[in-house]
């Protein structure tokens, strides 16, 4: 076989497996953080909608709109927090390095866990959108705050699921001896 693949696979076999796990954990942590795109977009949308709402109804709409925006944005933050937690686990309390198993498999588990967390973009964007629309609606009709808020939270809960799935897969890859 040619030197190229020999180099590739031979090198993978010669490198210390624990180093490979920790190295790939650095990449996995980086991937995980990309999930943070979601809350950034979503909460920014909520901010814009709330600013618009307080402009339209500065009197009685301002406070409820801001409150709903903050509440909705807090929900939208979750996938960013999930990503951060997974990254911190990989950086500071890496469970893979203590596992028994083939180094390459454990190392790629770190990358898989990080990739999985990218799913968090979705709930972050979507829940932030919901927060913005709810803030707008509450600004227009402050008396309906409870109904609007309930609908927002219900919808946000539904939008959270794929982020939870991703978190579960990441935790499985990091903590459970699957292979």
């Amino acid at each position, binding site marked *: 076989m040619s030197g190229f693949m020999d180099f590739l696979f031979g090198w*993978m*076999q010669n490198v210390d497996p624990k180093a490979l796990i920790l190295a790939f954990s650095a990449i996995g942590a980086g*991937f995980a953080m990309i999930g943070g795109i*979601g809350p950034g977009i*979503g909460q920014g949308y909520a901010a814009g909608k709330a600013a618009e709402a307080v402009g339209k109804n500065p009197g009685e709409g301002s406070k409820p709109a801001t409150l709903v925006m903050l509440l909705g944005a807090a929900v939208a933050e979750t*996938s960013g927090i999930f990503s951060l937690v997974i990254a911190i686990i990989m950086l500071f309390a890496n469970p893979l390095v203590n596992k*028994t*198993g*083939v*180094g*390459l*498999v454990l190392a*790629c*588990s770190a*990358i*898989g*866990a*990080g*990739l*999985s967390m*990218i*799913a*968090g*973009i*979705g*709930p972050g*964007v*979507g*829940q932030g*959108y*919901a*927060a*913005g*629309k*709810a803030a*707008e*609606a509450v600004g227009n009709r402050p008396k*309906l705050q409870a*109904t*609007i*808020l309930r*609908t*927002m939270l*219900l*919808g*946000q809960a*539904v*939008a*959270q*699921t*794929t*982020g939870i*799935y*991703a978190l579960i*897969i*990441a935790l*499985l*890859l990091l903590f459970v001896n*699957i*292979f």
Partner: protein
Amino acid sequence: MDNQQIDGNALILACSAIGAGLAMIAGIGPGIGQGYAAGKGAEAVGRQPEAQSTIVSTMLLGAAVAETTGIYGLIVAIILLFANPLITKYQSL
């Protein structure tokens, strides 16, 4: 711990871990879409509170439809992690 030997099984399992992670990225879609539905639902109940139950049930029906491809991704990831047919195939060769 002897990790020095990467064999075929190890390579398949390693790439399965990456494949599982990639499959989960599908979850971006339902998250955005259902969040949009949530926002439109909140807006609509604010405008027509008397139609709340119709609005919410339509929103949830649509959101359930939007969930499917996220579930597909989850299923493929679970298959790769727990019932890896590729390893089975490899062992049978």
